[in-house]
């Protein structure tokens, strides 16, 4: 049977700051790691009673930290990243969509693009529309960066569908997705998708 510590239990440790043996109290603190870079919330650690420095990490807390590390590693291994550069007028359209739906800009843009990616992965017809809309107007410079993390499954399916429709690069893909969303929100071409976007906007607020 493993023994379990709880908050306010006490112990002893050698303190690097105090340069002596001190008493410790187990308290909840956030724990930061450098590789991979992450922060584990509210981990029970042994804190020096004299200088408040974190001196010890009990075994049970380390199990939690390692579980978080494993989960983070699994996430990065199985996820894909869409990296795109888009002209600033398209970037403005993203903003306008968010404003029209009274959504929070950044969070909503990511959720919306993921939704459109998933629509694209399910429908060749929709993918064809995205390709038509991905055409760049003359003279527009791709000055804005759009970066999106998606699950590995969605990434694979969406890119396969996009490629089948002739959309071969990620910037073209994102241009098409934004333009499609803009049409859906500002014209009446797809009331269903517009309704979903309204729900997503509410959900991210």
């Amino acid at each position, binding site marked *: 049977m493993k023994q379990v510590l709880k908050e306010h239990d006490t*112990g*002893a440790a*050698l303190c690097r700051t105090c340069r002596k043996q001190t008493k410790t109290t187990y308290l909840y603190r956030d724990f930061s790691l450098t*590789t991979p870079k992450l922060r584990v919330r509210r981990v029970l*650690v042994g804190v020096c009673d004299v200088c408040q420095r974190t001196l*010890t990490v009990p075994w049970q807390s380390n199990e939690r930290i390692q579980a978080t590390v494993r989960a983070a590693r699994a996430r990065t291994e199985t996820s894909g990243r869409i990296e795109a550069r888009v002209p600033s007028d398209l970037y403005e359209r993203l903003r306008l969509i968010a404003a029209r739906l009274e959504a929070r800009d950044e969070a909503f843009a990511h959720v919306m693009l993921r939704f459109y990616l998933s629509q694209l992965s399910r429908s060749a017809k929709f993918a064809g529309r995205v390709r038509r809309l991905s055409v760049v107007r003359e003279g527009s410079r791709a000055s804005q960066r759009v970066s999106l993390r998606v699950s590995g499954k969605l990434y694979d399916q969406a890119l396969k569908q996009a490629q089948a429709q002739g959309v071969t690069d990620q910037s073209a893909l994102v241009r098409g997705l934004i333009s499609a969303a803009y049409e859906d929100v500002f014209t009446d071409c797809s009331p269903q998708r517009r309704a979903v976007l309204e729900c997503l906007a509410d959900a991210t607020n």
Partner: protein
Amino acid sequence: MRKRREGFREARARLIRALETGRFNFEGDEVREGKNLLQSGEVSIEFVIALLSSCRGTEHTTSPHHFVPSSSCHIFKPVTKRVRWYIKCYFLDADTILISVHIAEH
């Protein structure tokens, strides 16, 4: 006459018991790569217990703790599959603090 290693059996039994019960701490407020493979999850508690069980008295030493030299640490350097390991800890009252678990440098 050769000096008997200070508290080898007691120290080893105490560390094994701490590992078995889960009542031990890692030292510090960070996870440093390569310093403690038990902390980073690269080796299991069972593996460390097995290492300690195979450790001989001649593979045990004590040394002053690096930032509180008046306290002493126990160092176990057992060999398994021709690889020497380095396990360092100290005991205070009821507490066990495990500083290092890694392959020994030559």
